[in-house]
């Protein structure tokens, strides 16, 4: 008897939570993410994430059939 294997995880829809602690930035989540960064690294990561999110939304908009959205 066999069972279907679960699929690879889909993209996270929950946001990670960043907090400051003892002069560094902790990023918890999404999923199993648990990272500590310096303030400079966190800022740079944040900017990179915002830019990547903008491009991802453009990519999705480019895929939509014309006349929708």
């Amino acid at each position, binding site marked *: 008897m066999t069972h279907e294997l679960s699929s690879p995880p889909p993209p996270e829809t929950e946001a990670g939570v960043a907090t400051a602690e003892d002069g560094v930035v*902790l990023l918890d989540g999404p999923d199993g*993410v648990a990272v500590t960064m310096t303030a400079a690294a966190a800022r740079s990561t944040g900017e990179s994430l915002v830019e990547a999110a903008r491009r991802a939304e453009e990519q999705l908009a480019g895929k939509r059939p014309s006349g929708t959205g």
Partner: protein
Amino acid sequence: MLTDRFLRDRRGVSLEAGERARLEAAVSTTSTVEARRIIARAGEWLDQSTLLVEGIMSRYLDDRNGLRQLVAIHLPGDFVDLHAYPLKRLDHDVGTMTPATIAIVPHAELDAITEEMPELTRKLWFATLLDAAIHRAWLFRLGRLDAIGRVAHFFCETNVRLQSAGLSDGRRFNLGLTQADVAEICGLTTVHVNRVVRHLREEGLCIFRNGKVEILDAAKLARRGQFDPAYLYIDDPASPTPPDQRPRR
């Protein structure tokens, strides 16, 4: 006895008196080792294996910058590098985390046991497979759990393993590790672990202080760490040993 904790309370593989006596006789020397000492280096030829009698040991790999990644923790009663018996060369280093007492078993003695005592050989094999199960849980912990979950899972696992070795009452145990050690084990920074420990205390799940762990709410801690002890193969007197795990004569 040196082997008292080896496979203690493990499902269907507790040593019988003759097996324990044979394993004790196989020990060539015992020694005490300071904390943070390397016992076996990756790649070196090994003709003996190490049974951990007291203390905590680890397996680890170094990255190209020399930063250490722990890949396993060993507790009293573990046959730490039994893997080295068939492999002869390990792919990782083995070292002490705390002061430790170790018993050395030459591979020639394991050769003799393999030839003379197939049931004891099966139990040694079981011990190695138990290590593999704990490795799988280690991967799950680092790959799927968040920071709180990782630490919760590690405390739950260590509690069950130490309880099996007779070193935890199920609620309290002396871990003997620092927050920095727990950080390394859980793939976190010390700042992160410090906050997780505070969170676990404030949520009433457990207290980790001065190397000692006190579990306040075992069920909630296990739930938070997605911990299910099935992979540790602990003997449960309430459930009979499956036929395929009963000793063969």
